[in-house]
């Protein structure tokens, strides 16, 4: 096993072994699991009932009720108003740009994030600790600061000699910046957990490194990659602060959904804002579900 930071050491333990030997014993395992699940669905102990209650209230107050309010707001003026709000060419263009760029950024992140996680786990190099910290900066930085950084780097007075202000590249860069850590951080612990022996086993069975990656490593990483991708996508479609400075918010060109929502609100068109928001919500849900399905398929039929 490759040396790894102590914190993840516990996670490397193999799955607990059921009581040894008895084949009959193992036969009952599945049943026991089902039994436990069935039981917990119907009867709760007072403590776990209380816990569930608190969790649900908390979740409702913070998430469910506000989300419902958005939907109510969106439908307040009736279906035709909702439809009008969405079918405005400017809104459609904004949604198309947001979702399209988010998909692209997520695809880039799937490759780059996995690669960065791989390097961080498998390679020893100077400055590794530093890189570990730097990766999290997009998490920590207020996004408007990120916007400022991007503006000074790629804006009109760019020291690099590029001017990406008021272009779609700005949107792409801003999305990339804020979503970088997600896949790195979800893949890294899983990669640490992978036993090196599993790869050796695959090698002794005749698998090339590429085959081992495709048939053994990738399926093990798939759940982490997809959940990171889902986070990354959802973060991207909701991004505002980091792109608002550099992208110029030009209607039909660089205006994204969140900016569109903002301008609707400023124009006192709450229904329109809520309608766009509801679309983002639905898209996010679809992406999460789709990625979950993909993850299961990859893990299953590698």
């Amino acid at each position, binding site marked *: 096993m490759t040396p790894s930071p102590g914190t993840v050491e516990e996670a490397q333990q193999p*799955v607990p072994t059921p009581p*040894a030997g008895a084949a009959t*014993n*193992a036969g009952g395992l599945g049943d026991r699991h089902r039994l436990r699940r069935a039981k917990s669905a119907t009867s709760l102990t007072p403590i776990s009932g209380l816990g569930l209650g608190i969790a649900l209230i908390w979740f409702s107050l913070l998430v469910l009720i506000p989300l419902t309010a958005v939907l109510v707001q969106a439908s307040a003026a009736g279906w035709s108003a909702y439809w009008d709000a969405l079918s405005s060419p400017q809104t459609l263009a904004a949604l198309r740009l947001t979702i399209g760029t988010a998909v692209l950024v997520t695809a880039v992140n799937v490759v780059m994030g996995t690669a960065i996680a791989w390097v961080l786990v498998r390679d020893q190099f100077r400055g590794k600790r530093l890189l570990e910290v730097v990766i999290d900066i997009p998490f920590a930085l207020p996004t408007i600061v990120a916007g400022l950084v991007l503006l000074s780097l790629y804006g009109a007075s760019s020291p690099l000699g590029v001017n990406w202000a008021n272009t779609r590249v700005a949107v792409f860069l801003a999305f990339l910046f804020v979503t970088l850590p997600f896949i790195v951080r979800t893949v890294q612990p899983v990669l640490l957990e992978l036993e090196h022996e599993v790869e050796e086993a695959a090698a002794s069975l005749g698998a*090339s490194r590429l085959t081992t990656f495709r048939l053994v490593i990738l399926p093990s990483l798939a759940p982490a990659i997809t959940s990171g991708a889902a986070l990354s996508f959802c973060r991207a479609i909701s991004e505002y602060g980091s792109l608002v400075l550099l992208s110029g918010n030009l209607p039909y060109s660089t205006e994204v959904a969140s900016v569109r929502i903002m301008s609707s609100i400023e124009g006192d068109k709450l229904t329109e804002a809520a309608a766009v928001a509801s679309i983002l919500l639905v898209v996010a849900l679809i992406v999460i579900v789709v990625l979950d399905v993909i993850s299961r398929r990859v893990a*299953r039929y*590698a």
Partner: protein
Amino acid sequence: MSIKIAGVGKRFADFVALESIDLDIATGELTALLGPSGGGKSTLLRIIAGLEVADSGSVEIEGVNATGLPAQKRNVGFVFQHYAAFRHLTVAGNVGFGLKVRKRPRKEIAARVQELLELVHLSQFADRLPAQLSGGQRQRMALARALAIEPSVLLLDEPFGALDANVRKELRAWLRRLHDEVHVTTVFVTHDQEEALDVADRIVVINQGRIEQVGPPDELYDHPTSEFVMSFLGPVTMLNGHLVRPHDLEIETHPFDNAHRGRIERFNRVGFEVRLHVRLTEDETAPPALVTLTRAEATAKALDTGVPVWIRPVAGASQVRITAPAPTSAESLDLSPADSVPQPTFT
């Protein structure tokens, strides 16, 4: 010869794991690499498998020079102590992995997997995930997976080390039977001398990167050539500057030829066996000699604590002269009677 190892050496930084090992392993043989942990036996096994690269020397498998071959091309089955199961694949998927990599037709894979699962008695678990199996079952799955590619040699690295005592005994008896059925050249690493004596056709004792002795179990037990082999393979005690097995000591309550005089200091019965600590009159400062005999013998000779006795090795007893101070043998005498086997305490 199925495996020919010549002059293989390996160091990890300053640590010498193996010093120029020469070893031939015959086709169809079941060989144990026995020795204390850190002695280099696992490294040797991994070099045979191609999972580790030797600094010097060569490895030949089935007449092919494999020294520069990667693990993928050696056609070697390897079983790991901690199973190294592919967790996302079912038992059948695990077993069929090597064949899938070899792009065999689906039908052929299914048939072969079925056959192997029957061989390791896991047919009814084909669709389970490894996490749903017990340790013993997982190791049998790993064995079937290694056998699936019809390896020229099967290598097992402490295969039963992670299992509890009963399962371990069961599995090693089963491995012996399996080997008699399949007849693939097999090398397994163990630090458990009982396991090696029980299962192997031939034992290679490895200590501190060197081969101490090679031979069939009986020969090693009866004619050890060094103190290390003598004390690693079974219980020993010291008498007259020699290491001797406690059950090879004759004991009487009256003087007889060449016998050493002493007194029974401690009388311990453990099941069918009686263990005596005999303090020798000639050297009261030396640790007492350990004598084991059956309960019936002890009763017949009316042995008990404080009784004066005479002891000597039986004719033909294996003895090794002590050259250096012998820590293992001396320590074994201070042990509780429960473990008469001096296990070097490496961890």
